[in-house]
């Protein structure tokens, strides 16, 4: 397994430096697309895909194994679960305040609908980013058949 990963990984100063420089901007752009989906094009699905693209970019530059150690599958599942739970919580909140599902106005704050929508977009973005990077990590990590696993 580790031999295979090291074959994928080629150390390149140009790529590593470029990615190190570009990654924060891509991450910020992904968050921007998630939040700004309320007022211009974009939204959680697109922003999540951009954030996942940044994770893949890091994996290309710094090697799959080191990126996986930084973004373990427990973190991937945690991010996806957190996003799904946050969406459900934002949706169910108004019901406990006597409204309907996702009736943002029941939160009783100014621009509740807008903040609610941005929260939902962020939750979707977390799910999508975790899903894309998690699936690619899983496939890139190599398949291990259940019969062959010894744990």
């Amino acid at each position, binding site marked *: 397994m*580790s031999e295979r990963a090291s*074959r*994928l990984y080629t150390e390149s100063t140009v790529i590593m430096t470029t990615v190190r420089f570009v990654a924060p901007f891509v991450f910020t752009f992904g968050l921007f*697309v998630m939040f700004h*989906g*309320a*007022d*211009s*094009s*974009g*939204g*959680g*699905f*697109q922003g999540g*895909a*951009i954030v*996942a*693209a940044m994770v*893949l970019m890091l994996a290309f530059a710094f090697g799959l194994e080191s990126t*996986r150690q930084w973004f*373990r*599958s427990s973190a*991937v*599942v945690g991010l*996806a*679960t957190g*996003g*799904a739970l946050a*969406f*459900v919580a934002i*949706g169910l909140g108004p019901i406990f305040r006597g409204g309907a*599902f*996702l009736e*943002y106005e029941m939160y009783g704050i100014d*621009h509740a*609908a*807008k903040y*609610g*929508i941005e929260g*939902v*977009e962020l*939750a*979707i973005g977390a*799910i*999508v980013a*975790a*899903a*894309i990077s*998690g*699936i*690619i*990590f*899983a*496939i*890139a*990590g*190599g*398949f*291990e058949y259940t019969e062959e*696993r010894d744990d």
Partner: protein
Amino acid sequence: MTALVEVALVAFVLGCALAVVLLQDVLAVVVAFAAYSLGLAMLWLTLQAPDVALTEAAIGAGVTTVLFLLTLTKTVRPATDGQLFSAIDWPGAAVATVFAGALLWTLPAIPAVGDPDAPAWSNPDVSQFYLANAYDQTGVENAVTAVLAAYRGFDTMGEAVVVFAAVVAVLVVVRGGEGS
């Protein structure tokens, strides 16, 4: 000017599609397919669909390409024997031509771009209602987001849960060699 850009983009996309079909080397096909997605994303942009363009660029050109490249590194890359183009599969080409012809035949039934009488646009109970009321009712300026996260928020939650279920299912079934 816009028409020129659109014609150039359509020509680029069609050229990439032909390259995907005709090239012999699998790696070249993957690269051509990424270029095809990127051209399509720009085409969406000229058609005033930036939301779709963003998704196409990130998923079609980015993530799908990475998936294909990963598949190539995990499997074998068939030898090309120095050939640039593969032999044309004439029965397949005939089926594809008939299929494309049938689709093109229905083209006149589609309303023109920007046609005010198009059913999807002129419907007073759906599209016009959302466009007229989205800002007052939700406070967001992007009507697509208003429909996704407010009017059809329950459906979107279903979609998000499907994506969540997909990643959990893949991680349960394909336990990659983490820590091994």
